């Protein structure tokens, strides 16, 4: 019985412990967010890194996702003679869900892991301690700029994914199925409401914060040398991907219930 409680209790305690430390790091980050000096140059550097790392993958994923959406819906929409609505379907599905979530998952894999690896390496080689002894707060210097950069870059990447996905759907519908381009474009944008777009963008900004926070958290508290860095990197990706899908559900429920 004791053993049973132990096996049940240990993971729960570990989870509470991790969640608590994550929350503390979030509070610390928010506390340092508006303090001087503002490291604008660092924010731009990280924005560039996020862009360079994920842009090609995001572009390819978005285009092909838009394309496959059109391809799959054509056969079913045809049964109702509703081919003209494919554009609407593709645009709404992309803007609300697919573009933000897929972009989030890609950025988690590319950028979240890089953040965990960078900070983890800095931790195990005592560079984070060195920052501290040089009178620079490590959260202020390392985490805040990444946090801001991810917050800004995720919606930008998502907008791009929206556009490219719609483009992919357009290409498939007009070139493969020979739908009328004007009708398709009108269908895409006539029924698309602002809310569809901005709800997706708000979600993506939250995903950005989630990715940066998890990546930085895992890196910041790395221990155990190079092996520890590897573990931190993997678990940063896994955790932020799960968090993205969970947050996506609850934010979706929130947006579309009102």
């Amino acid at each position: 019985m004791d053993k049973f409680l132990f096996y049940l209790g240990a993971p729960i305690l570990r989870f509470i412990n991790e969640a608590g430390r994550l929350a503390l790091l979030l509070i610390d980050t928010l506390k340092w967010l508006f303090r001087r000096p503002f490291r604008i140059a660092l924010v731009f550097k990280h924005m560039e890194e996020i862009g360079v790392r994920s842009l090609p993958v995001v572009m390819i994923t978005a285009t092909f996702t838009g394309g496959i959406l059109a391809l799959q819906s054509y056969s079913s929409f045809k049964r109702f003679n509703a081919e003209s609505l494919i554009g609407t379907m593709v645009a709404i599905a992309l803007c609300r869900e697919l573009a933000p979530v897929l972009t989030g998952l890609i950025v988690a894999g590319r950028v979240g892991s890089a953040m965990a690896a960078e900070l983890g390496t800095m931790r195990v080689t005592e560079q984070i301690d060195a920052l501290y002894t040089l009178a620079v707060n490590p959260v202020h210097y390392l985490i805040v700029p990444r946090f801001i950069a991810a917050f800004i870059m995720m919606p930008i990447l998502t907008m791009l994914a929206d556009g490219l996905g719609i483009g992919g759907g357009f290409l498939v519908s007009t070139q493969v199925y020979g739908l009328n381009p004007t009708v398709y474009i009108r269908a895409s944008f006539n029924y698309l409401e602002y809310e569809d777009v901005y709800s997706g963008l708000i979600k993506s900004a939250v995903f950005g914060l989630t990715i940066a926070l998890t990546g930085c958290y895992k890196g910041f508290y790395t221990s155990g040398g190079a092996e520890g860095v590897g573990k931190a990197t993997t678990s940063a990706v896994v955790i932020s991907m799960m968090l993205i899908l969970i947050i996506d559900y609850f934010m979706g429920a929130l947006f579309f219930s009102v």
Partner: protein
Amino acid sequence: MQNSRKVKIQIRGLEKSFGEKKVLDGVDLDIYEGESVAVIGASGTGKSVLIKHVIGLLRPDNGMVTVDDINVQDLSGYELQEFMCRFGMLFQGGALFDSMSVFDNVAFPLRERGVRDEDQIRKRVDEMLNLVDMDNSGNLMPSDLSGGMRKRIGLARALAPEPNIMLYDEPTTGLDPVVGGVIDRLIVRTRDRFHVTSITITHDIRSAYRIAHRIAMLYNGKIIKIGTPEEMRSCSIPEVEEFVADRTAHLENNLFQAGNSGFKGGN
């Protein structure tokens, strides 16, 4: 040392455990202003842990550390950052920022403390690189450097903003005797010229003799002996005696004998 002098760093009843393992078990140590103290002890006895408490990188389970009568544990946020400006620390592995060139590493604390004049920064960085005998290495990246070079750059970076207290974590370990000697002289020079208070962690007893006013021996989580180099030499506590005896001479002797017998065996 002289009791009239002001106590700069006071460590009282410091205890620290990691999990089950008690690393520090009631460390008491006073360090006077302008004094250089070396802490010696075997590998893994908690020497690094001890100085990390002085600088507030680790929090004690029990006991306290005060610096200039300020309790390090009480500070946080901006206050702590302000307070850290008094310190410089040389890390065991140098802890250079991989993403920056040598120049930017040394310039980093200056820029962070609001020096904007690039000419002034360049001058200071060149001066520091010259001090550690690494002229013209500004454009190299840390990955291009050997362990000893990294340490020297780490020293230049720590000294650039003119700290009041220096903490050296094994400054000469892993260096050849010549460079080790250079570093020792640097430490002595900073001590004497800038009146810097310092704690140096080392395994190298010869280096400790050269740089320290007093030497403290850490053993089993406690300071078992503290005294001037002469006092350490004549100390009769076995642990201290063993450490203070010239271990390298002993080793060389052993090796020599092993080599000899091997040679004979071959005959």
